[in-house]
């Protein structure tokens, strides 16, 4: 493992040679699922005390690699792995020095920090199994002290901030292991708002000071450059290479990740058409986070909604679609159809379709087929007199899945067999099957790989060109820049700024979102 394979196809960057014996070394790691080779002959080595980034798009094999290391999946035969010089059976056993913090953190939010740590590290117990609470509390404080976190260890973690939870998860993972070893952080910033990422970086630095190496999984480019020493890039289940971060620039790294065939700076180029009629108006929108938002959008416009977590940007789509529950108030109307204002509480009659933020829990019905998922919103229009026409349904499904380019093993395949991007297209098709005037999207490309992401951008842009009004709320500035004609920036539940997306740079947008006076 001291001589990583050099991949000559990659033009930029230089292969990084570790100078000391790696703490974790893996060679020829493969994983075959029925029908797909998720990981193909991948090697990885991690030097002592380094932060080693693992990058790749969705579907590149990152998650599979992590799950193999965690022995969640078993590896194909032929792999070799060693930790601190001792070989281990990768995919079947996990060496003591290899610790994991998974993306969902694996915490029980109803329990306190102390209980969560004890569940991982064990309770201090006295005679008869009685828990020695005082000793337990001292231990909890000692473990957390290393990370300089200000947290009431007796309150349920639900009351803690996301970054505090992440710190507790890291502390729990590292319990009983002092120095050395490797901590695997799987997409730790996915659940963190922008302003808390810096805090996480400090914690990672603290972990590194203990002498523990970090395998940092992410697809956020900026984090890698401010945090990592080396980066291993995966693409399509293969290792593209391992590089010193210092020898790379963001552009080069992006190319390594996506290959040469996709433009990561895609712009849909939809132009704002002020001559078009207004198709959506909302006024006085309040909700859990929203504190009075007014907006209007025109036919053919793609209006972006941006904001930090808690600003209300991701709540607004649900309110506009009339699906925000009893907390929401405000009025909405579709001037092109009727001049009447509707309370958002009973705006479901307006039938504004919504692509929800969390595809797995809010959009996809996993037990349904592709066809059933698409037709769900439009069942009323299929057949008549109470009978659901299988023929009408098949026609509707065929038409939309062809139009959006849904790749599946057939319309009667379970939707869970589709990739994230294709599932998202199915949800889009479900919304469009209603033949709406206005479409509301929340996090439209979450968990979608770059190739499919661009094709989703194209679909949305084409729809706008035919006169559909699209509202896009996203915590991914890339979505907003790629799609929107106009962006409303929310801060503290109100519209703080309105930006024309033309010529807008990502840094200006992020500064507006954070409300910083830099």
């Amino acid at each position: 493992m001291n001589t990583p394979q050099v991949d000559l196809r990659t033009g930029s960057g230089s292969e990084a040679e570790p100078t000391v014996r790696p703490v974790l070394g893996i060679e020829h790691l493969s994983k075959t699922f029925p029908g797909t080779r998720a990981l193909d002959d991948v090697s990885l080595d991690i030097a002592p005390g380094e932060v080693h980034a693992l990058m790749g798009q969705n579907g590149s094999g990152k998650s599979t690699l992590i799950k193999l290391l965690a022995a969640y999946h078993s590896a194909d035969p032929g792999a070799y792995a060693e930790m601190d010089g001792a070989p281990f059976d990768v995919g079947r056993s996990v060496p003591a020095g290899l610790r994991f913090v998974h993306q969902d953190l694996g915490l029980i939010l109803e329990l306190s920090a102390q209980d969560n740590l004890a569940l991982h590290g064990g309770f201090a117990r006295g005679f008869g199994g009685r828990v020695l609470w005082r000793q337990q509390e001292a231990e909890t404080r000692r473990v957390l002290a290393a990370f300089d976190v200000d947290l009431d260890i007796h309150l349920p973690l639900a009351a803690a901030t996301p970054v505090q939870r992440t710190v507790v998860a890291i502390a729990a993972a590292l319990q009983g292991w002092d120095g050395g070893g490797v901590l695997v952080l799987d997409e730790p910033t996915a659940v963190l708002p922008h302003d808390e990422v810096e805090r996480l970086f400090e914690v990672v630095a603290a972990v590194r000071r203990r002498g523990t190496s970090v395998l940092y999984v992410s697809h956020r480019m900026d984090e890698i450059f401010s945090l990592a020493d080396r980066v291993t890039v995966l693409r399509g289940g293969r290792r593209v290479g391992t590089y010193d971060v210092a020898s790379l620039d963001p552009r080069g790294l992006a190319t390594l990740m996506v290959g040469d065939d996709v433009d990561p700076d895609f712009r849909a180029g939809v132009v704002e058409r002020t001559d078009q009629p207004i198709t959506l108006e909302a006024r006085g929108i309040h909700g859990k986070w929203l504190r009075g938002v007014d907006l209007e959008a025109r036919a053919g416009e793609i209006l972006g909604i941006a904001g930090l977590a808690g600003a209300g940007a991701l709540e607004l789509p649900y309110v506009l679609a009339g699906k925000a529950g009893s907390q929401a108030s405000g009025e909405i109307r579709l001037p092109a159809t009727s001049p009447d204002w509707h309370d958002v509480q009973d705006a479901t009659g307006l039938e504004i379709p919504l692509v929800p933020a969390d595809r797995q829990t809010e959009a996809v019905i996993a037990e349904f087929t592709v066809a059933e998922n698409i037709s769900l919103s439009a069942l009323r229009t299929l057949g008549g007199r109470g009978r659901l026409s299988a023929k009408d349904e098949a026609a509707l499904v065929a038409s939309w899945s062809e139009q959006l380019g849904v790749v599946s093993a057939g319309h009667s395949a379970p939707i869970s067999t589709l990739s994230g991007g294709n599932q998202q297209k199915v949800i889009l098709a479900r919304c469009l099957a209603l033949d709406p005037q206005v479409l509301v999207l929340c996090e439209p490309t979450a968990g979608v790989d770059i190739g499919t992401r661009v094709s989703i951008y194209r679909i949305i842009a084409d729809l706008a060109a035919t006169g559909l009004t699209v509202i896009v709320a996203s915590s991914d500035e890339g979505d907003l820049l790629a799609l929107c004609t106009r962006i409303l920036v929310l801060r503290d539940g109100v519209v703080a700024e309105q930006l024309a997306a033309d010529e807008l740079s990502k840094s200006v947008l992020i500064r507006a979102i954070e409300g910083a006076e830099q």
Partner: protein
Amino acid sequence: MSVKTEERVVTPTEHRDTRRGTSRGASRLVSILAFDKIGAVYVLLAIVVVFSLWVPETFPNVTTAKQIFNANAVTGLAALSVTIPLAARVFDLSFALNMTLCGVAVAHFVVDGVPLVPAVALGVLIGLVVGLINATVVVGMKIDSFIGTLATGSLIQALITLVTNDTPISDVKLAGGFSKIGQTTVGGITLPVFYVAVVAAGIWYLLEHTATGRRLYAVGFNPDAARLAGVKVARLQFLALVSSGVLAGAAGIVLASILGGGSPTAGTPYLLPGFAAVFLGATQLKNGRFNAGGTLIAVLLLGTGTTGLGLANAPQWSGALFVGVVLIAALTVTGLQRRTTLAARAPALDEGSGGNAGEAPSDSGANVSA
């Protein structure tokens, strides 16, 4: 003789499947006859063979087949009454007590001299009211259906005791038209078997061929997603519980007619077999969806097994043991199948679990924090 009986028992389901299969081609037929779709039919066939060999003098004949149909009709009605709520993943644990209540109520009315038709109508109305109360508690007051209908069941028990003083209602008046509802036979088959066929056909049509049925399944699988896709989740759950109230009430009246009187404990024995049949039925035909056809197969399978054990003079406890073993075995096999499918799906899930997709790689994004 033996062959004839086997056909007899299996015919209702097997025949329909075969017909559907041939109309859409041989590959379709193979997939419909696959073990994971109709495993219970094969188990049923095996059971028929076993008992035909075990008790050749009493089991393999038409009388036994008819007896299996007749004896399990009420179980069928009971199981069908909770199929719709379960499709929407709502439990109605009060259904068995509801059966008892409607049975004793109608018996009570008839004994009091109320003419048969109004008495039965009133009984069904009571079932409807019970359904409305269940729906109000579960949907309106947002109490989990499992505990909510357990609570309303206790209320129903109180009413039953109030009406009957815990003593059976029996009277010569009950031997008249009232007993005909459940005891009339047509060619050796009692009327309740035909009721089962009608109700099953109705539920099959609702769940398979209407938008409402599709929406009920959507609510059952993922209520949040269904709501966000515009499905009126609360309304469907409400109607599902009302439907089980009415159907259980009707089943209870049929049961009282078969028993020839109002027993204050008549419905309770149907609680477990009813749920057992629905859950076993969900493993059949439709890959985990609660459905009418599967429920019928399950009722037949469990009924054939227990009847056969009875004829073979197996000990009393063997019937309950059989139901428990079959249910656990069926759900284990289904669980294994699902896990295998999930493992095959892992790559797709990996991709989906990305959660926050992060930023599109671009120069500007990195420069901000660099």
